[in-house]
């Protein structure tokens, strides 16, 4: 039986109350998603991110909560056991900060630990707070006006220096180095 024949057979015989569960749905090919579109049954797809195309646009999206810290720690401990690694709680605590709430990254970091590779953060749950810090420095410029009003030269200068520091950081922040490795 060819793949097309199989698809046709399933489409003809699948009951209306059947539930199709498709893990890693992001990997489904266009041919499969078109076929799924015509199926008369319930479909549940799992994916790390929602692809904005064909059948996925029609689907209702339910975002699952990230695994909590305890869960990630358990994953790392299990992976360490599987790898035959004896890692202290202090080291787990440190490695966990590289994994964030990403279970796959947690496993990968333990494997890297086994190979003795240099660790870099492996998740992407980052928030760049450089605008916050620069904004705070600039907001200190408010004291410049308080100093101006009250005749306090120190406040006037501190406010001015902070404001200039914030602006300088803003421009320095535009200096961007290569994020990719050589050959990437």
């Amino acid at each position, binding site marked *: 039986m060819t793949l097309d024949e199989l698809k046709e057979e399933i489409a003809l015989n699948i009951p209306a109350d059947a539930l199709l569960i498709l893990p890693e749905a992001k990997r489904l090919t266009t041919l499969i998603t078109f076929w799924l579109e015509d199926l008369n049954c319930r479909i549940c797809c799992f994916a790390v991110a929602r692809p904005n195309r064909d059948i996925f646009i029609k689907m209702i999206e339910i975002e699952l909560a990230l695994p909590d810290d305890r869960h990630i720690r358990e994953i790392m401990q299990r992976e360490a056991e599987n790898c035959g690694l004896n890692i202290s709680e202090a080291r787990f*605590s440190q490695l*966990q*900060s590289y994994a964030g709430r990403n279970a796959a990254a947690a496993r990968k970091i333990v494997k890297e630990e086994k190979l003795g590779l240099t660790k870099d*953060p492996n998740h992407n749950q980052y928030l760049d*707070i450089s605008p916050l*810090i620069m904004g705070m420095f600039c907001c200190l410029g408010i004291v410049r006006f308080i100093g101006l009003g009250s005749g306090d*030269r120190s406040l006037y*200068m*501190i406010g001015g220096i902070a404001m200039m520091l914030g602006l300088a950081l803003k421009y320095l922040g535009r200096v961007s180095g290569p994020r990719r490795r050589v050959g990437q």
Partner: protein
Amino acid sequence: MSVTHAAISAAAVGLSLGTVDPLVLAVAIGASQIPDIDTSTSSIGQILWPISRWIEKRYPHRSVTHSLIFTVALGLISFGLWWRYQIDVKVAIALPLGHLVACFSDTFTKAGVQLFWPSPLWCVFGLNPKRRLTTGGTGEYWVLVGAVAAIAINFGLINGGGLGQFTAESLGLRSGLLENYQQNANNKEVFALVQGTFLADSSTADGRYFILSQAGNEFILMSQSGIYQTGLAGQISATRINTELGQPSLRQILPLTFAEEEILPKLVLIAQSHPKALILATGAITIDSPEEVSIAPKPGQLETVKLAGNQLVFNHCPLPQIINKISLQFGSGSLELKIISPSPRL
């Protein structure tokens, strides 16, 4: 590294609160170590190991103890201590501020921190990890050097009268000099380091003068050669003046009135009772025999005594000079004596 955290927090707290109070800095340094209580590999974690082991079993490094919630909790503790035991406000601020600075400084590292814990976001300064610091790396040592330099600068600024005073002195701002004089003249000798010229002959007036008093925005100065006033209405045109504090010194003002009486005895008595003091008189006395007083004005110097009709007018006139001029005069009037004790070394 704990040393870097300590240096950064001490520098930031010291500079922001304008203090070098050892207690404030010690609290800031202590607070900077609190975040790393979440790992038993840190210094504080090794000291308080039951707490650090409990935390590290449950949370990732740089999560709960590096969060703003933790800073707020420390702030509440500080507020409680301030409210209940009236501890110094700067000490109370140093605790949460030291912690906050340490947490923010960790955002410059590769791993970042969970500032907004329990949110899973890791806060970093710049998204490119290659542009962030590695803990214990070369970059961190440069940060440590910078923080220590900032502490040293703060010590210098505070000892020099604060940032405002330091800038005023560096730029030679007159308002800052007047402020410095007003703040210190009552308990310290204040000297003026003058760069300028004498208006009379345009010769150089560069030198170190003792500041006798302030005249508007100008100073009345004294050197071994005489008494001068700065400004175009005076005798010295100063292009730049810096102040310098000297030995402890006490200034007091003594009013003196005369009512148709002999002037000399009162002045001699005051001079004898303050043998090591510099006494300057300002005011006017109407005397009975002005023809017996001879005044030879010193060119290029402040006219400390002048005769107007039968009235002797004094302006920062040293007491020995008055005693020499007035022998057996009777008169009435009032003088204000400025007694500077001990007499400054010129």
